[in-house]
């Protein structure tokens, strides 16, 4: 490495100048910490903090990605979301209702959805496995009743944002939105119908 003498001293001078400029930058950062601080103290300060230039206000979002939620009263069991899911993490079972649009008290089945469509099916099982969900939001678009949506953001009125849903046991992350006991309730009713007719 036959560096001649000129190069030798130029290297030393270059080292000194560049290292000192680097240190001056970090020194400025140290001084301006009050203004430049970008971290949140998590349990106390929650995401987002628009006034401190961290994240933006969720209210003017067009779409949000967080935990899925389903309003069972509006779900007509059309299975469109189950087909749209690329990772098949939604499972729905439905049973035909004797009469369209009638409420069935024992099972808590509401006959007419908020959009006014009369339901023909009781959804006995609506499971979403949040461990497999890839948060791609493809299931939200085809829903005719907009009953499946991600919490928070534009849907904040229906359901506040919820991104702290970690559990101790993985099986608890399989959300079962169907009304409990609706499966055997509706079967018993159907059996009684057969018995009468």
């Amino acid at each position, binding site marked *: 490495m036959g560096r001649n003498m000129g190069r030798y001293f130029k290297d030393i001078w270059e080292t000194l100048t560049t290292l000192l400029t680097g240190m001056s930058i970090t020194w400025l950062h140290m001084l301006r910490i009050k203004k430049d601080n970008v971290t949140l103290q998590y349990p106390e300060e929650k995401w987002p903090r628009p006034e401190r230039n961290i994240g933006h206000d969720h209210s003017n979002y067009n779409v949000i990605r967080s935990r899925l939620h389903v309003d069972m009263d509006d779900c007509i069991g059309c299975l469109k979301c189950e087909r749209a899911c690329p990772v098949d993490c939604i*499972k729905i079972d439905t049973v035909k209702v004797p009469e369209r649009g009638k409420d069935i008290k024992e099972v808590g089945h509401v006959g007419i959805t908020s959009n006014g469509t009369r339901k023909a099916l009781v959804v006995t099982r609506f*499971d979403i*496995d949040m461990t497999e969900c890839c948060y791609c939001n493809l299931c939200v678009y085809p829903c005719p009743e907009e009953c499946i949506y991600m919490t928070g953001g534009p849907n904040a009125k229906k359901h506040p944002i919820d991104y702290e849903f970690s559990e101790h046991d993985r*099986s608890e992350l*399989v959300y079962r939105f169907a009304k409990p006991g609706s499966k055997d309730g509706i079967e018993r009713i159907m059996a009684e119908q057969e018995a009468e007719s």
Partner: protein
Amino acid sequence: MSKEREKLISDAVEKAIAGDMDAINNIEDRVVRSKAKAALAKAKRLQKDGSSPDADLSGSDVPTVSNAPSENPNRMFGDRINQKFPGSLDGDLKDTHIQLKPDQWNDIAIWLKTEDDMLFDSLQCITGMDMGEDILEARYNLHSMKYRFAIEIRIAIPKNKAEIPSIEQVWRIGDWFERETYDMYGISFSGHTDLRRILLPDDWEGWPLRKDYEVQETYHGIVVPKVKEGWE
């Protein structure tokens, strides 16, 4: 010398645009002829900018939209390959690709790369295909950095004798592309220095991307297909 060659090329191109193709063809000097062809191609493209793909619906395939001159490169280079290596074409010329037989593929590759008016120096990608009825196919997308030509060469081989000469020495990236195609489809590339699986563990059975592939039950005792109780 080059001024006079420039003039020769420009008026040959004029005549060719006017429709008289052999003005270019009877230029003896090969380099000047190829330059004239390139200039002609460029002139045609400027004439007809943004050429929409000439929809040749005859073949089963919708043509690959190539950004090369309006005269389809696959066809142009297909017949040049046919002239240089007679009998290497497999079936007639198509717009979307050049169908070749596997046997002379290695020296065609060397020729494609070193021929000075083609210079296909960058192998874009090798795609393995399972065409069904036990035919496998390797599709090579080649591209010339200098002349901006892009062609696609396909080589079909039967499943039981899946053997294609390797082009690892011609384009160095062929080494890994071929290993991946071998890993996924089981096409063994003869002449490849160290042909082994690249993505899957070395002792994995079966070729995953083939249509008739069944996942093996266990791998070293680990259950392979994901079992989730209480879900189905």
